[in-house]
């Protein structure tokens, strides 16, 4: 394999020498470098006020006198963004956060912190650099923040609170990860065969040392993307190919740690345009690669003198493949895709498999910030859709060194996104329309199976169907004010045959319904519902290092229903400045007549201002 990469590298090096022109590309920053030499300072930012009152009720409180009936919390927050362009080729930005918790005064609950700090620029009109905070994504198998579960087509009424979570955790639509480090990138233009090439690389620290047993953890990697010219104008044949490499490692020279992890993933992604005409196109696209994970040790000689070498211990490696066809009918705005995936059981990619939701922290508990333990036995309340919709502490952007815990009720087929290991099978999708069309709809699905059994030779079969549709009703009625209905459904089934103690049969359905009515100009009435049920049983293993199964706890048995209703109004003063007042009702039914059933009533007002 190393020889193959050596040859490819030599080939690319020769291609580079034939480059005819050079050009630079953006490093992915949000702000824009000034066009003139004149120094500029700009002030932007975000202000937010939220006050939230949550009340608990239900059967679980019948004999529980220790749980308070209601809690009120909130915050006043200002993120002040200072952006300076001292000259044409450099730019710096800082976001200072001033925050006061609801109820905090005379210093209590107040904080001032630096939320973001970076600098970027261009060297010799060719290489772009950036240091400090940055949001990066590569491919879904290397560096990627997969979408969280619990949402299909977010009803408008539930979006404001989710947007707060996304902002706090630096989530973006491009599935980037928030990192702190440095990166450079540049591009080249060519004349024949290759049209252009883009190169980028980065290094970031994703964990700091405690100067004892925990070493610094760094992640580094890069991409090389090549695009060919169009070979046949009548057919539009062209190709894009990318080489991705990412390496996560512990710096054993930091602190006193003697062991650390090494995780390397290298992939090739490609997009071959087989046909590209005015009315249709056909693409063959995919990604293939390999991961390696090793345990590194720092060794010392008999005199206790440290030797600056590491030896590699336990090692696992595995491959993955994702290849598919995408067919587009351009005029009809219809896209049909199908792909085959084969993700090895030992495929290990920390940068791509780390989840956004932390169902369990290092203490095997979740981080709910309210009503964490309820009932007479003070048992930990399981995470619900209500928590996922508002509790930002459940979310994270950390890069985990093992597969994070997941809730099979919400996501069992691909709990770690596209890079979920131990899966093979067919994925498909049909997408119709665009966002502002009368109808914008899509269906995605997957029929997958395990590659390696967990605790048995029997394999789980997974079926996942996700469908969503947006109806811009006002366009049907030719009304000026917007009326938009949204619909989303996710059906997921997991089955496994075998003996009595091997059988798995878990079915879950999530339905999202939403209605947004613009009663007056910029004044919306919002309605929404999330209906969820999950029934059946499944085994979820406890993992140890290298994602090896440590044990299987007793099977999880579900007979759960969750209903979340939302009603609210929203007034938009101008773009990105709005206030919304909402009422949410949530009900958790954990089986008929279960004394642990409970419900939440929530009122909140949110004022959000981006300036």
């Amino acid at each position, binding site marked *: *394999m190393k020889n*193959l990469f050596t040859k490819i590298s030599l080939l690319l090096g020769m291609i580079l020498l034939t480059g005819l022109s050079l050009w630079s590309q953006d490093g992915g920053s949000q702000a824009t470098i000034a066009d003139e030499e004149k120094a500029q300072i700009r002030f932007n930012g975000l202000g937010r006020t939220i006050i939230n009152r949550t009340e608990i009720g239900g059967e679980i409180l019948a004999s529980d006198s220790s749980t308070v009936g209601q809690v009120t919390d909130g915050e006043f927050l200002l993120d002040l963004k200072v952006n300076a362009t001292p000259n044409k080729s450099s730019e710096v930005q800082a976001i200072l956060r001033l925050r006061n918790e609801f109820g905090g005064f005379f210093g209590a609950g107040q904080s001032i912190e630096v939320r973001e700090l970076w600098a970027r620029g261009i060297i010799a009109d060719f290489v772009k650099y950036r240091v400090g905070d940055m949001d990066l994504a590569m491919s879904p198998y290397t560096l990627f923040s997969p979408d969280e579960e619990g949402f299909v087509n977010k009803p408008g009424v539930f979006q404001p609170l989710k947007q707060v979570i996304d902002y706090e955790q630096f989530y973006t639509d491009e599935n980037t990860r928030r990192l702190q480090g440095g990166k450079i990138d540049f591009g080249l233009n060519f004349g024949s*065969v290759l049209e252009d090439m883009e190169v980028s690389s980065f290094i970031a620290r994703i964990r700091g040392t405690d100067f004892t047993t925990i070493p610094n953890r760094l992640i580094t990697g890069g991409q090389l993307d090549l695009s*060919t010219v169009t*070979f*046949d104008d009548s057919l539009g*044949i062209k*190709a894009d*190919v990318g080489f991705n490499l990412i390496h996560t490692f512990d710096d054993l020279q930091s602190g006193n740690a003697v062991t650390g992890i090494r995780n390397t993933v290298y*992939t*090739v992604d*490609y997009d*071959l345009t087989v046909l590209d005409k005015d009315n249709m196109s056909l693409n063959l696209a*995919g990604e*293939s*690669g*390999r991961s390696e994970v090793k345990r590194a040790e720092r060794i010392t000689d008999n005199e206790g003198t440290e030797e600056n070498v590491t030896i590699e211990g336990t090692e696992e490696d*595995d*491959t*993955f*493949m994702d*290849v598919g066809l995408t067919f587009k009918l351009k005029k009809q705005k219809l896209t049909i895709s199908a792909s085959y995936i*084969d993700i*090895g*059981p*030992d495929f290990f990619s920390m940068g791509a498999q780390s989840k956004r939701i932390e169902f369990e922290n290092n203490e095997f508990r979740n981080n709910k910030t309210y009503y964490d333990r309820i009932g007479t036995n003070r048992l930990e309340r399981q995470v619900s859709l209500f928590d996922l919709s508002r509790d930002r502490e459940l979310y994270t952007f950390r890069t985990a060194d093992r597969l994070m815990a997941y809730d099979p009720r919400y996501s069992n087929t691909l709990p770690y996104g596209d890079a979920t290991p131990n899966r093979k099978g067919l994925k498909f999708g049909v997408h119709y329309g665009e966002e502002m069309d009368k109808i914008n709809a899509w269906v995605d699905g997957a029929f997958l199976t395990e*590659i*390696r*059994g*967990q*605790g*048995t*030779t029997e394999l789980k079969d997974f079926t996942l169907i996700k469908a969503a549709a947006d109806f811009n009703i006002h366009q049907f009625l030719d009304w000026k004010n917007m009326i938009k209905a949204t619909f989303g459904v996710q059906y997921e089934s997991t089955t496994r045959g075998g*003996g*009595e*103690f*091997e059988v798995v049969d878990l079915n879950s359905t999530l339905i999202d319904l939403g209605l947004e009515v613009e009663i007056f100009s910029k004044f919306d009435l919002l309605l929404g519902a999330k209906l969820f049920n999950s029934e059946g049983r499944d*085994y979820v*293993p406890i993992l140890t290092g290298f994602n*090896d*199964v440590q*044990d*299987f706890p*007793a*099977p999880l048995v579900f007979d759960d229903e969750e209903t979340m209703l939302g009603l609210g109004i929203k007034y938009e003063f101008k773009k990105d400045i709005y206030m919304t007042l909402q009422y949410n009702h949530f009900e958790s039914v954990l089986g008929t007549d279960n004394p642990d059933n409970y419900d939440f009533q929530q009122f909140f007002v949110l004022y959000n201002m981006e300036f």
Partner: protein
Amino acid sequence: MNNIKILYVFYLFLILGISGCSHDTEPEMPNLVDRFGPFTGLSALTASQPTVDFAAGETVFFNATFNKNVDWILEITGAVSGSVKRIEGFSSELNASNATWDGGTTEFPLFRAEETVNVVLTVPEEGEFMETTTVETLSSKQYEGLLLTDFEQELGSNEVVGNFEFEFNPMTTGRQTDIPAQGNFYYNLAGMDDVVPNFFVGLMDLKAELAGGGGTLDFPTTVPEELYFNYFIYSDRVPHGLAIIEFFIDGNGTGTYERDQDTQTFRIAEDIDLNTFEGWQLMSYPMSDTGISQEQLENVVALRLLLISNMNTQPSPPLEVAYGLDYMIFTEGSALQL
């Protein structure tokens, strides 16, 4: 179009080259049936043969099967000796690979010849489950090595006891039959340092001739690191007692042991504290621990057994101290494996 063909080949090469798609498909453990399934014994416990002649190199193995992997314990108990051999495992089947008995022992004493042994199979997780069978031993296990003595025969002139060993208890010192670790006899040293309070209770020397050879011990190897000295020692955890074993080499060149003439001795640095264990113990150490050389090993003519009473800790009047010895054997390459 040549460019396109090259491109296609390039892609194919990349796709096939990078992704092998062969994975390790061995199921991840623990097995769910083992973890959660009910337990059932599928076949009774049986022995591969009703009698076994260990001295002839025979072994006996046991068979049983369960419906799932479990932790099991096979306990073999001598009806006469009371000796116990315990074999443990985690599997769904007992067979020659995991349940073979070569006559060895887990708990003293050693098994005897011509005794009935009772074999009991239990599964700790399944408290009520028990399977039994019996086997007859025709002979006991023979251990490789140079046996100095197992005290089954009278020591005669090969036992040298000095004139000043009057602090020994004459009733309990010497060959005894009450609790042998092997066979029918062991040697006991017992006494009280109450005449001359000098820590010393008594000593006795065992001449090399006990091993059946000449005046020097004919070890299986004379490499000190490779030669292990093994013996069974008994203590009832009575405090204040120390045991010491020394090796004499032929100092005067006569090729045999002469008391007060052969005086150079070797021993391990640590005395054996008789208050640190109870019952019979197997003690083993390489002869290199005594500091003896290869040349000196070729001239070992006797062993000395000493009984010490630690008067620094003894009450007044002092308590009796004692220890027993059995089956003193030298092995090559490793310590004695019971």
